[in-house]
């Protein structure tokens, strides 16, 4: 153990390659199994080719990817899917059951439910996308700084991540969002990023610590390479694989997290239509014969979360040669 000033399980992974421990998050809905990553550095290009070929043979990966592409096309080009304006509502036609005119029926306020479901994809997916980008960015930078420089920076960042991780996710989310006031896509994505970054930071830190003592990094250093160059060229590529896996799973979890925050009254708000908003307005109708109000948005959302998680899984399996 060379990194002796702060011995934590992550730091022991180098000599412990048959089992690897993953961190947990504080959020139940964001729990994801990411075992098997952060193992040995593996950065040869053929690994990625192998992984790609492997993925192409996995039906779950193909189906998940196709489904995600469909949803992304809804988010990016909703007009491809419907010509109806989701805000063009007639309250006199509220809660009509699905028919040929309104194939998903109409909403509580008389809007075409199909159009709403299509346009609802964008905010849901944007929250997840920006939230994940934020987590990867903050977590990545902090993880690299902590792992590479060690010392007081490491200690400080570990404390910081403990403070954030110790804060229960939903309670923190409600507190932050009540504070911010505006419950826009940006606000929710930022709050997700602020609360979840320790998850990526830990993985990043562990990868950096294991990589920085590798011979080729030592060699680069003795050749006079700058810190920036070492980090960018030699260390980051090691951490990419586990981060991609976590990011994919986070994308899925964040789609669900938006809905849960909406349930707690701090998520997106009408007139913004998102799947979370739709599910929330519909959840009380489970009992009452308007089940379609719940089924359509919930179906789309569950499918999306499921696809991201299964894809993340498949990517991890593909990147892990031991499991082939």
């Amino acid at each position: 153990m060379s990194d002796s000033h702060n011995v934590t399980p992550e730091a022991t992974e180098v000599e412990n390659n048959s089992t690897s421990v993953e961190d947990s998050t504080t959020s139940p809905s964001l729990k994801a199994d990411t075992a098997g990553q952060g193992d040995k550095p593996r950065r040869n290009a053929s690994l990625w080719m192998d992984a790609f070929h492997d993925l192409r043979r996995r039906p779950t990966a193909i189906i998940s990817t196709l489904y995600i592409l469909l949803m992304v096309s809804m988010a990016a080009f909703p007009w491809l899917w419907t010509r109806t304006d989701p805000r063009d509502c007639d309250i006199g036609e509220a809660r009509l059951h699905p028919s040929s005119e309104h194939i998903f029926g109409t909403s509580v306020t008389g809007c075409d439910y199909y159009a709403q479901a299509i346009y609802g994809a964008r905010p849901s997916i944007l929250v997840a996308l920006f939230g994940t980008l934020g987590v990867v960015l903050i977590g990545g930078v902090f993880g690299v700084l902590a792992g590479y420089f060690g010392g007081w920076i490491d200690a400080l960042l570990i404390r910081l991540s403990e403070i954030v991780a110790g804060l229960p996710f939903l309670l923190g989310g409600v507190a932050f969002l009540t504070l911010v006031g505006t419950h826009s896509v940006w606000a929710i994505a930022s709050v997700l990023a602020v609360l979840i970054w320790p998850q990526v930071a830990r993985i990043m830190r562990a990868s950096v610590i294991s990589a920085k003592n590798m011979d080729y990094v030592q060699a680069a250093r003795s050749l006079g390479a700058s810190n920036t160059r070492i980090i960018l060229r030699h260390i980051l590529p090691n951490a990419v694989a586990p981060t991609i896996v976590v990011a994919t799973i986070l994308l899925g979890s964040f789609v669900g997290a938006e809905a849960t925050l909406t349930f707690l009254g701090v998520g997106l708000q009408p007139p913004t239509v998102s799947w979370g908003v739709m599910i929330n307005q519909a959840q009380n109708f489970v009992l009452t014969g308007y089940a379609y109000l719940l089924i359509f948005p919930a179906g789309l959302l569950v499918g999306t979360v499921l696809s991201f998680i299964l894809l993340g899984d498949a990517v991890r399996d593909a990147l892990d040669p031991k499991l082939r």
Partner: protein
Amino acid sequence: MGRYILKRLLQFIPTVIGSIFLLHYLVVLGIQINGNPARAMFGERTPTPAQLQALAEVFNTSDPCLEQTGNPCLGLFWERVSNLVQGELGVNFQRIPITELISHALPVTLRLAFLAFVLQVVIGLSTGVIAGLRGEGVVDYLVKVSTVLFISVPVFVLGRLVQVYLGVEFGGVFRDSSWAPDWLTALFGVRYTPDHPWASLILPAVVLAALGLATTARLTRTSLMENLRADYVRTAIAKGLPRRRVIGVHALRNSLIPVITDLGYQIGVLMSGAVVTETIFNIPGIGGLVINGVRQQDASVIIPVVTFLVLVYLVINLLVDLLYAVLDPRIRYE
């Protein structure tokens, strides 16, 4: 070993103080931006300034720094920390002692977390082992997809569905019958009832466990599959040890290491992450206590209770790290 634990315990101090400050600042900013909670109590009717002032004093939100947006109100922070250190938790907006609120909420939360944890261990481990032993195939796929499906459904939807179909519909069978014992009726009830403090928490525990259960199952599966491919298993089988023993004793034991550490973290999650489940099943637990505190911006509730949850998280983290070393002799803390 002792020095390591001491060091970790000392590191708790800055973390806890940092958490308290973060919470304090969140509440302070919330009041500065969103208005004094005392005002909301009067509803649409505008109180006189004197009335407002009197209530703000009861709420301990009358400090003038609460009107200057951005001011961290360090005086108030110091007051809170020193009160906490002296063990004086104070009273909430309704003048109920915080210790009393916690003493009501904590046992319920502990029971719920305990039941969910048991479910998670029993179901999660067994499905994980089955999937892991069978290897990639139909069973594995079924386990994988069904467990992931659980995580994909937002917890409030899952809770509502369980409540409607198992509580109202299926539970009706027992309520209408003459033979069903009370506990069975409570088990398939709609909400928590203090008359049956365990039975009526089982359905909520199922909902709560559904999330972590998938993680446990998948982690067990992956870990077991890795170990089954490990050299030592091959060696043991080549040596002629019975396969059942090799798998049952060696492979399983080793593959449980990451699972157990993960389960450790889960306890903290179960204790604090039940806000939604508590709301739906009318459970008076810690999560609801805090979320109502957050909504009312009642610092006197938020700060002690969340600080307690942070401490639980830190202690469990430490225990998990130690446990990890116990289970894996290759790791030593010096």
